[in-house]
């Protein structure tokens, strides 16, 4: 029985870690690379979840619905950055506290809009694989976690390749380092940041579809995700996109092992303990040097 619990705890931790990575990926772009503390990211995830719910009611698979909604969400993210830039950056007043206030305000507005449109009831999706599991010997993996967990590595690999091998991706990374040098190269940093926000918004949409597959959501579900999403990004190291998934695996497996062998109540605390210990020993995060 011990072996069964151990094997399944590690497997569940990896699945949860993969899902945490998907939730944090957009934040890894806006906060990790661009250093903009976009605390409104989780509410965009919830917005994506509601889009998945609406599409699912019309017979769509949530993840396919998210892919179909990528362009509108890209535009929404770009528009959101445009608003932020006009309010703060172009006035040269991109103060962190003011930006936090703006993003917090946007979160409240989106939450209220969702309440007005959908009410406060929890929403869920109806997909065939929820409630069933893949069984391989002692290993039992619920499809509710397995399917979303397979999406995250694909998202991260795609984003990493985009940032690494395309001019636009390199420009996004450059925007975080030296805006003036970017301008000298003939690239508009404002356009690049807007583009990055659009990409982050698309990842939020896919993460929303994932979130609503693993459990019900309500307009306030984003508040529960924000701490862990920031923890994943900081543990990985600012801007370390591939490191995001490894950091998320560490948090996921730690939570799962503590839940299985100690006390489930301690699991969120243990994850943040790892974060604090890592920052004390390696302030740039686990993979921060690779930026």
């Amino acid at each position, binding site marked *: *029985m011990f072996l*069964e*619990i151990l094997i*399944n*705890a590690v497997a*569940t931790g990896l699945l*949860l870690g993969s899902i945490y990575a998907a939730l944090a990926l957009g934040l890894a772009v806006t906060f990790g690379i661009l250093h903009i503390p976009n605390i409104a990211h989780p509410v965009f995830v919830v917005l994506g979840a509601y889009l998945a719910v609406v599409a699912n009611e019309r017979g769509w698979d949530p993840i396919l619905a998210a892919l179909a909604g990528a362009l509108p969400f890209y535009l929404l993210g770009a528009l959101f950055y445009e608003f932020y830039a006009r309010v703060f950056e172009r006035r040269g007043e991109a103060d962190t506290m003011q930006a936090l206030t703006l993003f917090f305000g946007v979160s409240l507005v989106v939450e*209220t809009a969702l*309440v007005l449109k*959908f*009410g*406060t*009831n*929890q*929403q*869920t999706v*109806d997909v065939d694989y*929820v*409630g*069933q*599991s893949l069984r391989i010997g002692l290993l*039992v993996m*619920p499809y*509710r*976690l397995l399917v979303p967990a397979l999406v995250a590595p694909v998202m991260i690999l795609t984003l990493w390749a985009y940032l690494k091998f395309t001019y636009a991706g390199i420009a996004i990374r450059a925007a975080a380092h030296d805006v003036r040098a970017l301008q000298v190269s003939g690239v508009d940093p404002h356009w690049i940041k807007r583009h990055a926000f659009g990409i982050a918004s698309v990842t939020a949409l896919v993460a929303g579809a994932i979130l609503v597959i*693993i*459990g*019900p959501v*309500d307009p*306030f579900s984003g508040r*529960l995700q924000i701490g862990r999403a920031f923890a994943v990004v900081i543990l990985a190291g600012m801007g370390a996109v591939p490191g995001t998934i490894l950091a998320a695996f560490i948090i996921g497996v730690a939570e*799962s092992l503590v*839940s*299985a062998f100690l*006390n*489930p*109540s301690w*699991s*969120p605390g243990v994850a943040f303990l790892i974060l604090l210990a890592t920052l004390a020993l390696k302030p740039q995060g686990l993979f921060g040097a690779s930026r």
Partner: protein
Amino acid sequence: MISRRRFSKIAAGTGLALAAPALSTSSLAQAQPIKIGTSISLTGPLSGTKNALTGYQLWRDDVNAAGGLLGRPVELVTYDDQSSPAQIPAIYSKLVDVDRVDLLISPYGAVLSAPVMPFVKQRDLFLVGMFALAGNDTVRHDKYFHACPWGPNSQVNWARGFFDLARAAGCTKVAIMSADIEFAKISAAGGKAISEEYRMSVVYDQSYPPNQTDFSAILRNIRAAQPEAVFVCSYPPDSTALIRGLSEVGIGDSVKIFGGSMIGLQYASLLANIGPALNGIVNLHLYVPEPTMRNPAIDGFLARYEPLARAQQLDALGHYVPPFCYAAGQIIEAGVKGANTLNHAQISRYLHANPVQTIVGRATFNELGDWTEKRVLMVQFRGIRGRDVEQFRQPGRQVILDPPPLRTGELVAPFGAARSG
């Protein structure tokens, strides 16, 4: 020829005669309203209970249509507490000191009610409690009356029905799991006390953080402990995740009865979302549409509630919260009419001495303001097919197993067999 003085007298008399009916009929409207203050969770995690407002409003409309209280109309003064205990002290201070309400109703549940209790005790105010388990056990305020039938010594007794069923099914080993929140902690402590009283050994006893999404590790540990009864104290999001986990990893063949204290399985949206996975679970409720529960008063109430719920996107069934909010109004109505005053001490004396007939049953209060008779239902979900919420309005889907006077069926066990529907 009519003199000017005589003309004035005739005009005044005629005017008075014409205005008299209007003066008479508007006397209620012109009287100072009786203000009843409360907070409602319109937003935040507990906003699923915002249909409480509809229950209060339906009672207010009825009492005003019947002439009000003491010849005065009733007015509700409500604020959104955002489901946050931090908001409660300021809201209730404002209700009493600024809005000058005449009577108070507590917020929903133990978590939000806890900050109100020292306040009403200190000010010596009358308060109707709403859903707070063991809400007055610590403060022991003599002007507190509960609108929900948790019964006396509710911390221990309210889930006794679950353990009575477990004992009757021959269970000797019990697992207890609870969320890390006030209500669930109280409930789990009560479960442990009854287990000890019934000489059941507690083979698993752990809590988990609120909003846990994956229960596979917990369920495997419970399965390893081989309990015969699993007593669960959960809140809506984790109730859903737990039931999904049951379908995914199972709970083992040893379990005869599962559930007990799962909040959320009373709400239409969750029932519809979970659907057939509910089958076999035994859980608390306060009203289900079984033959032993129905009466014209509550049927009439629900018939008025349902169209409002559709229009306002509220809980489609309204079985759990709104009828008890209406009952809270009826308790106030009985107290004020019986004492014929708004004096809190006299209202309280009247309610301690006299029963109150409400749409959810006859309430008689003990010294702590709890109902002297516990009327918490333990129902078993059966025959749930698909996700149509209409089936939860039909009898036979939530069969009452306890208390015996309201029973409409026997426990189907073991749990694995009951899961098949």
